[in-house]
C-alpha cells in the first residue's frame, strides 16, 4: 500500500512537471526577428530603423515605381502604355487605380516608419538621437508635402498606428502645412552639416530648400487668378507654428539661405548630371537624392524599365526594358521651338511623320539639354542594329513618341540600377528663387538666378552653345511673361525628374487648363486622339487625386 502511494506521488510530481514544461512552450516569440524595444535600444539598431525610413520612401510602392507610373501620365505631360493605369493616362483618375492604391499604402508605410523613429528616438540620449530625429522630421515633411499637394486633405498621422488607432479622419490643409513647416524647421536645426554624417544623406540646408518650396507652393496657389471652385487658401495667419507675414518673402529667406550658405553649386555641364556610371551620383548640385544601387533581387527603382525604350543602347544589351512612359509630343516640340535655334516661326508645333521632319540640331546653337533629355527621330536596336523610327520621324502608332534619355545604365541587370533619383537639386532652388524674386520685385532682379541655370545649360565639354540665351528685358520684358516662362523653364531643365505633376497645378486651375489646352491642341495637330493619346476634358477634378476606394471602404471617418 505504501509503495503504491509513493508511485502515485512520484507520478503526480512528474505529470505536474511535464504539464508545467508544456504550458511554458505556449510562450513563443520570433527567434530571428527583433522587437520594437530591441531595435531602438542601441545606436546600431536605430540606424537600421532610419534606413527603414528611406527603404520605404524609395521602395517600389512609392518613389521606386508607383508614384512615377501614376503621376507622370496624370501630370498631363507624359503618355503611358500601362493598361492598368488607363484612367490616369486619360487624366481621369479613378479611386480603384492600382498604382494609386499601392502608392497610398506606400506613403503611409513610410510615415509609420518615420513616426516609429520619432516616438522611440526622441529623448533616448543615444549618440545618434539628433541626426536620426532630424532625418525623421525632414522625411515626414517630404511625405506630407507630397500628400497635401496630391490629395489636399488626408489623415495626419504623427504617431505610429496601433490596433486602436487604425481609423483617422482627414485633417485640413492648414493643419497639414503647419506640421510640414514645423517639421522642416526642426529638421533644419537637427540635421547634420556637410560631411558630419553618412554621405548622400540630406544636410540641414535640404530642409531650408524644402521650406522654400513649400512657401512658393502655398503662395502660388493663393495668388492664382483662376482657382478650383472649392479651393480654400492657406493664409499666413493660419500658419501658427511660425510667424509669417508673406509667403513669398518667407520663401525668399529660406531659398537665400540655401543659395548663400548651403555650399551647393551647379555641375559644370548639364551632361554631368546624367553621365552614365556612378560619377553622376550625389554631385555638388544635389540637395536631396534617393540612393539606389546593387541591393539584391528585389526591384526597387524601376526607372530604367519604365522610361528606356526596348533595346536602346543606353542600357546593357539584352536587358528587359519597357519604355512605357514617354514625354508627350508637345513636350519635345516646345523645347525644340523654344531653344533649338531652328526656324519654326509662327508654328505652334513641329511637323512630324515624314523623313523630312527629322530634327537635326546644330551643337553650336541648340540647347544641349535637348540631346541630354530626349531620344528622338530614330535609334538603332542594340540587339540587331535595326533602326526604330520614333517621333518626330514617326507620327502614328505606338512608337510615335520621343523618349527620355536621362537615365542611362550600361550595368543595368534588369533589377538594380545605379541611377539615383534626384528629389531636389540646386538648379531647382535657383529657378524657384527666380520665380519668387519676380513676384516680389519684378523681373530685373530675377534674371540673374535664371541666367545661372541657363549659362550652365549652354556649357558643354567642348565649348558653349548659343541657346538657351540669357534672359533680359528684351526677351522677357515683364512680370507676367516671366511668370509663365519660368514654369516652362522648369520643364526644360527638370524634365523627367518627377516635378511635372506638381508644377502643372501649383499655379492654380487657370495655368493647369492652359497647359492642358496646349496638349489638346497638339493631339488635334498630330491627329492622335484615340490613337494612344487623348484629349483631356473636365480637368478641374484632376487638380487632386481621389483617395483610394480601399481607404474609403475601411476608414470609418472618410466617405470620399
Amino acid at each position, binding site marked *: 500500500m505504501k509503495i503504491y502511494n509513493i508511485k502515485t506521488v512520484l507520478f503526480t510530481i512528474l505529470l505536474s512537471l511535464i504539464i508545467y514544461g508544456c504550458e511554458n512552450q505556449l510562450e513563443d*516569440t520570433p527567434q*530571428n526577428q527583433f522587437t*520594437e524595444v530591441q531595435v531602438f535600444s542601441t545606436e546600431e539598431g536605430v540606424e537600421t*530603423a532610419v534606413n527603414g525610413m528611406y527603404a520605404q520612401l524609395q521602395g517600389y510602392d512609392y518613389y521606386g515605381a508607383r508614384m512615377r507610373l501614376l503621376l507622370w501620365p496624370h501630370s498631363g505631360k507624359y503618355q503611358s502604355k500601362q493598361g492598368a493605369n488607363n484612367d490616369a493616362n486619360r487624366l*481621369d483618375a479613378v479611386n480603384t487605380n492600382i498604382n494609386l492604391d499601392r502608392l497610398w499604402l506606400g506613403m503611409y508605410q513610410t510615415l509609420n516608419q518615420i513616426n516609429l523613429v520619432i516616438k522611440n528616438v526622441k529623448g533616448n540620449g543615444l549618440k545618434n538621437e539628433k541626426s536620426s530625429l532630424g532625418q525623421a522630421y525632414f522625411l515626414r515633411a517630404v511625405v506630407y508635402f507630397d500628400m497635401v499637394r496630391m490629395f489636399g486633405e488626408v*489623415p495626419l498621422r504623427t504617431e505610429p*498606428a496601433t490596433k486602436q488607432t487604425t481609423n483617422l479622419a482627414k485633417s485640413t490643409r492648414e493643419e497639414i502645412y503647419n506640421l510640414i513647416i514645423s517639421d522642416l524647421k526642426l529638421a533644419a536645426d537637427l540635421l547634420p552639416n556637410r560631411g558630419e554624417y553618412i554621405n548622400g544623406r540630406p544636410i540641414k540646408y535640404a530642409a531650408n530648400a524644402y521650406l522654400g518650396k513649400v512657401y512658393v507652393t502655398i503662395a502660388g496657389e493663393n495668388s492664382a487668378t483662376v482657382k478650383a471652385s472649392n479651393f480654400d487658401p492657406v493664409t499666413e495667419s493660419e500658419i501658427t507654428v511660425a510667424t509669417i507675414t508673406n509667403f513669398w518673402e518667407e520663401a525668399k529667406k529660406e531659398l537665400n539661405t540655401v543659395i548663400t550658405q548651403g555650399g551647393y553649386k551647379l555641375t559644370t555641364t548639364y551632361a554631368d548630371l546624367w553621365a552614365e556610371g556612378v560619377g553622376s551620383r550625389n554631385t555638388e548640385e544635389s540637395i536631396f537624392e534617393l*540612393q539606389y544601387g546593387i541591393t539584391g533581387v528585389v526591384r526597387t527603382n524601376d526607372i530604367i524599365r519604365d522610361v528606356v525604350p526596348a533595346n536602346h543602347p543606353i542600357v546593357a544589351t539584352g536587358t528587359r526594358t519597357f519604355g512605357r512612359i514617354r514625354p508627350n509630343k508637345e513636350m519635345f516640340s516646345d523645347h525644340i521651338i523654344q531653344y533649338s535655334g531652328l526656324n519654326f516661326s509662327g508654328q505652334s508645333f513641329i511637323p512630324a511623320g515624314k523623313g523630312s521632319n527629322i530634327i537635326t540640331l546644330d551643337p553650336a546653337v541648340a540647347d544641349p539639354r535637348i540631346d541630354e533629355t530626349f531620344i528622338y527621330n530614330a535609334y538603332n536596336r542594340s540587339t540587331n542594329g535595326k533602326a526604330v523610327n520614333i517621333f518626330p520621324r514617326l507620327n502614328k502608332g505606338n512608337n510615335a513618341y520621343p523618349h527620355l534619355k536621362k537615365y542611362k545604365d550600361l550595368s543595368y541587370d534588369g533589377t538594380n540600377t545605379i541611377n539615383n533619383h534626384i528629389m531636389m537639386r540646386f538648379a531647382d532652388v535657383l529657378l524657384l528663387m527666380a520665380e519668387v524674386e519676380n513676384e516680389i520685385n519684378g523681373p530685373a532682379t530675377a534674371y540673374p538666378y535664371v541666367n545661372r541655370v541657363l549659362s550652365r545649360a549652354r556649357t558643354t565639354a567642348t565649348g558653349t552653345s548659343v541657346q538657351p540665351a540669357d534672359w533680359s528685358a528684351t526677351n522677357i520684358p515683364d512680370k507676367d511673361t516671366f511668370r509663365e516662362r519660368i514654369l516652362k523653364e522648369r520643364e526644360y531643365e527638370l524634365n523627367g525628374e518627377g516635378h511635372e505633376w506638381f508644377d502643372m497645378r501649383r499655379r492654380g486651375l487657370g495655368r493647369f487648363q492652359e497647359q492642358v489646352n496646349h496638349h489638346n491642341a497638339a493631339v488635334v495637330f498630330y491627329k492622335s486622339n*484615340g490613337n494612344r493619346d487623348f484629349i483631356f476634358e473636365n480637368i478641374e477634378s484632376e487638380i487632386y487625386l481621389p483617395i483610394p476606394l480601399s481607404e474609403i*471602404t475601411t476608414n470609418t471617418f472618410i466617405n470620399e
Partner: protein
Amino acid sequence: MYKKKFGKNHRINATAGFLFDKTTIERTRYSGSDFSDKSLRANGISFAGNNTPLIIDSEAPAIVSYIGRVNYTLMNKYIFTGTIRADGSSRFAKGNRWGYFPAFSFAWKASEESFLENSKIISDLKVRAGYGEVGNQNIPNYQFLTPFDRTEASLSDADGNGSLIPVVPQNLANPDLKWETAFQYNAGIDFGLFDNKITGTLDTYYKSSSDLLLNFPISASSGFATIFANVGDIENKGIELSLSADIINNDDLKFNIYGNISHNRNKITKIGTPTGNVGALGNIVSYFGNNVSGGTHFKQPANIFIEGEQVGLFYGYQTQGIIKDNAQLTNTPSGNPLQYGGTDLQVGDVNFVDQNGDGNIDENDKTIIGNPNPDFVYSFGSSLEYKNFSLSFLFNGVYGNDIANSNLLELGYANNTSRNIIKNAYHNAFDASNNPNGTYPLVGVGGVGVDYTREFNDRVVENGSFLRLSFVAFDYKVPVDNISYIDQLKLTISGQNLWLLTDYSGFDPEVNSFAFDPLRIGIDSGSFPNQRTITVGLNVAF
C-alpha cells in the same frame, strides 16, 4: 481511463487526456537573379549575378489541451456523452491563450424499445441531439506581436553598394486576438424501414460562430493594409436529408436508388464596426472582400459583407441592357444623358441604373447585384446489378447561386484592343442600323471617351445553378469458372462529367477561383474547368 458497470442497466466510461502539440518550423530562403549561364536551372543558384542574403526564419507554435469525456449508457438505449476540453494556443497573447469547449450529446436507440422491437415497418430508429462548442486558432504565428525584420532589399549607400540594412515592422500587432468559437445545436434521426430496405438520415443544425479570425482589411492610412482580428459573428442553419432504397434485392437482380439534399442559410449577425454610407445601400455596417485581381481587370472587390445579410453578396452596378435610342438615352429626370466619369453615355452604351437619380453613374449607385450562396445542393444516383452486369451513375447539382464571371469584364467588350473577346461581344454588339437589338455595347466601347468597361456590373453576374452527370460506370464480370488460372476477369467502362445542364456561359459553373480566400467568394477568374474523362478498364485476378 475509467470504466465501470453498475448493475445491468448502467455503464459509465470516462476518459481524461492531456495533449501537447508543438511544431518547429525552420525556413531558409535565398534568391538570385541575373544568371550568366542558366543551364543548371535551380541547381545553379550560386551562379547568380545578383543575390539576396540567406533569410532564415523560424517558428515554434504549440497547443496544449486538456480533455475530459464521460460516456453514460442507460439500458443500452439511452446514451449520454459529455466532453470538455481546454485548449491553449501560442498564437495568442497571454491572457487570451485558453479556450474552453464543452460538448454534450444524447442518443436514443428507439428501435430497441419494446414497442418498436416487433414493428414491421420500422426496423431501425435512432434519435440524436447534441450541443457542442469548438474553437479555431488557424492564423499565422506572431500576429499578436509586431516583429521587426529587415526588408528583402538592402539599402544603397552613396556609392551604390547595398551595404545598409533597413529594419521595418512586419505587421500591425493585435494583442486582443483570441480563439474563434462556435456553438452548434444539432438534432437528427437515422431510420430504416421495411427491414432496412429504405434507410435514411435527417439532420438539422444551427451553428453560431463568433469572433471569426480573418485577415481583415484596415485603413491603409495606418501604414498597414490588413490585420488579423476577431471580426464579427456568423450563423449557419441548415437541414440535410439523405435517403437510400433497395427497390429490388435478390440474387440475380439488385436495384438501388439514393439521393441527398441539403439546404444551408448563413447570416452575418455581427460585424462590430460603426455604420458607414455604402453606395446606394445607405447607412449599413459592412466590410468589403479583397480585390479580385491586382492587374488591369477587376481590381476591385466583388463581395460585400453586410450585417444581417448573407455572406459575400456581389456589389456593383445594376444595368438594364443597352441604350437603344435617343429616347432611352434622355429618359432621365433631367432629360440629359447619364454621365460616367464626367462624360455623357451614348446610344449603344450599357444602360446603367442611376440608383440615386443624380444623373451620374458613380460610387453612389453601386448596390447588391447577386448572391453567391446556393439555395440547396443535391445529388442522386442509382446502381443496378443483373447477374454479371452492373451499372451505376451519380448526378450532382447546385441550385440558386450566382457566379461573378470575371472573365467577361475582359472578354465581354468589343473594345478595339488586340486581345481576345467572346464571339457575341462582337457579333451581337449594338449597332443602330444593323443590329438595333444587340445585347452587347457598341464596337469600340471604352476606346475613346467614356470607359466604364472595368466596372463590376450585373452583366457579368450569372446564374450558377447546374445539374451534372458526374459519374457513370458499367461493369461486366466475364464468367471464368472454366478457366483454372484466372480468378476474376472484369471489364469496366466509366465516365466522369459526361453531361452538364446549366445556363452559365463560362467553362464550368462548379468553380471557385479563390477557394483559399474567404474574402473572394463565387468568382470565376479563368478557373480550370472539370475535365471529362472516359476510362476503359480490364481487371484480371489470377
